[in-house]
């Protein structure tokens, strides 16, 4: 009797750490964040008074927040297609035989070895408008840190650089998993590379592509560390993103209520975008 009881308790014990962590670092903080966004919170983190949606009301008329929202959505809009395009191109272009192809492939996932702050600092130096190497090599004088559009572009470049390593690997593997005989048959039937891509490769790597898209959307909506290190929200708040503002308000100014409100908004927006993506996937993607 005792052994049976211990036996049936076992699975629960085994998953206890995971459940505990989920509760402590995911669900509980989530609830707290939601709560905090509905209260006035003191500088020490204590909830003082319930204010309902007042924080959100003040947030949405705050010009700085509107800027963050616009910047983050625009960044997502630019980053996701650009990143997918570059990573997919890298995977497709190096999808060949030979030593050169292998060399290409190595180059493409090498950025994964460069840590986040290392990469950001390298970029910060080489994109310096006056003494940086990029302007010099390309013969241009773009003000990467002073021109809002250039700064946004730089942020996209930074985002791509941070992501290309792992995304290339995933897409590369997805391509290689396409049965070779299918490719042979298609080629024999006279399909050119474009048709090959459109009708054979694309549908078959679609699940991976969806995964890539989903994580890209999530990463773009949440972007913060590159902003912190490269642009600090500048110039003129043109690269201030939602999570960066959350960091400023919540952590630097100690305004937990506003920080939590921003966090809540980010969460719901991202959730909606991902939901939309899943809807699209349901209708268009083929699974084996």
């Amino acid at each position, binding site marked *: 009797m005792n052994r049976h009881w211990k036996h049936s308790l076992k699975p629960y014990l085994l998953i206890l750490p995971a459940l505990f962590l989920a509760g402590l670092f995911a669900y509980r903080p989530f609830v707290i964040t939601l709560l905090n966004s509905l209260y*006035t919170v003191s*500088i020490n983190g204590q909830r003082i008074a319930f204010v309902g949606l007042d924080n959100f009301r003040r947030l949405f008329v705050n*010009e*700085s927040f509107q800027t963050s929202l616009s910047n983050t959505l625009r960044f997502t809009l630019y980053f996701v297609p650009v990143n997918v395009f570059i990573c997919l191109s890298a995977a497709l272009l190096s999808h060949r035989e030979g030593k050169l192809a292998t060399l290409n492939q190595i180059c493409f996932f090498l950025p994964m070895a460069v840590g986040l702050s290392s990469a950001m600092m390298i970029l910060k130096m080489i994109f310096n*408008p006056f003494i940086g190497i990029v302007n010099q090599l390309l013969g241009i004088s773009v003000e990467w840190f*002073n021109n809002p559009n250039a700064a946004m572009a730089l942020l996209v470049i930074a985002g791509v650089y941070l992501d290309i390593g792992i995304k290339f690997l995933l897409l590369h593997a997805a391509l290689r998993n396409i049965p070779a005989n299918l490719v042979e048959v298609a080629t024999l039937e006279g399909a050119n590379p474009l048709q090959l891509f459109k009708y054979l490769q694309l549908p078959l790597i679609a699940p991976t592509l969806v995964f890539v898209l989903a994580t890209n959307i999530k990463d773009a909506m949440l972007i913060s560390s590159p902003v912190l290190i490269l642009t600090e929200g*500048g110039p003129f708040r043109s690269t201030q993103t939602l999570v960066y503002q959350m960091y*400023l308000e919540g952590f630097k100014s100690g305004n937990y209520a506003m920080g939590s409100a921003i966090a809540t908004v980010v969460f719901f927006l991202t959730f909606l975008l991902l939901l939309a993506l899943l809807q699209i996937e349901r209708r268009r993607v083929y699974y084996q």
Partner: protein
Amino acid sequence: MIILISLTTVLFAAGQREIKPDPVRTVTWWHPNSGLAGQATQAMVQAFNSTVGAEKNIRVEAVYQGKANDVLTKAKAILQSDSRRDLPDLAQLDGAAVLDIRDVDALIPMEDLALSDGYDLDAILEAARLSVTYKDKMIAMPFNSSTILLYYNKTAFDQGGIARAPRTLDELAVTAQALVQKDARGNVIRSGFANVPTTYELIAWLGQQNHLSYITDQENGHAGNPTRVLFHENGTMVNFLTKWKALYDTGALENLTSDRNGAFASGRTAMIVASTSNLTTILSMVGDRFEVGVANFPMVDEHATGGVNVGGGAIWAFDNGSGNRDAAWEFVKFASSGEQQLAWHIATGYFPIHRDTYSLPAFEEHIAKNPLFKVAIDQLMQSNPQLQGIWVPSAYQIYYAFQTGILKMLTENRSPEETSRALEAEINGYFAEYLRMQGQ
């Protein structure tokens, strides 16, 4: 088995804290000084440890904690988590830190330490002392003090036949226009003046008007929490913005927010305003490309005689339960003394804050050899010591509010009046948030 291993590693990780056994009294000093200033910091600490420190059995340990902001973030985190023993004995913080630090229980007002040692507070430059005075008490020791200067390309001036540096914004507009250089296709390759006003610069440009104007109530926050800005109702902002707009309309102004030192050193712009603490760096960067000149920070108009304020950082003392107050004070006394401030100044370009320094023969010698430094010092001596920096919440956001607001005025053709009012509304909003968080 796995669980056992995991448990042990978890316990090991949780226990990873620093332990420091100490016979000598160790004073920890957190600072943001890197590069040349970092080296000067090491030198100063070593000088103390081998003289006064050796005598009184005190050892100072200077810990670099990142930028000024980072030092504050660390200190704040500890203060909020209520674990005083983790506080350093001394921390070097800048103006943005004041609001978070000045009211905490753990803070030991520097004046208390000074007076209990019989120290004469008048020995400190009045402007510097007032810059860290709260409700009439000096709560920190000014340390890495600086003011702003106008840096100009003297070679370009000579080439353009410009005899002296501009004194007012009107003169600046004229001078800047004369210095603009374009290439064959009409693109500007050198602008006359490159700047987007920062909070620090606005403190001077607004505060200097009418010999002294306040930017916020509560004496710019030195008498209590500011509740609203005054720069709109006292007209100083509109006055400044009008001049600034006129400057922009000449086409000689470049709206550069970052890396102005680089732009100046590379010859991309002929004039910038920058801190005195940048002097050494700019000189090194420019090298022998051209001759660098410095001049007083431009006045908004002929009535703006307030001069400039003392900016930079100060050293704050904390009570962390280690009983090191006197030891910490010994070091602060040392660091702010005449000779040490001279050494500090020579190495970094920061202002000596102790009166004695200015009468040292070594100082006069140094100034004679480096006339550019003299400009900054004279400028401060001519300024109104009551002109002080602002102690406000959400400094970061306010900085961006100013920059964005001014940019909008210039590029979207808004009126100075409108811009000033918008800035008033936005910044008052931040003040209101802050007061709300205090439970008021």
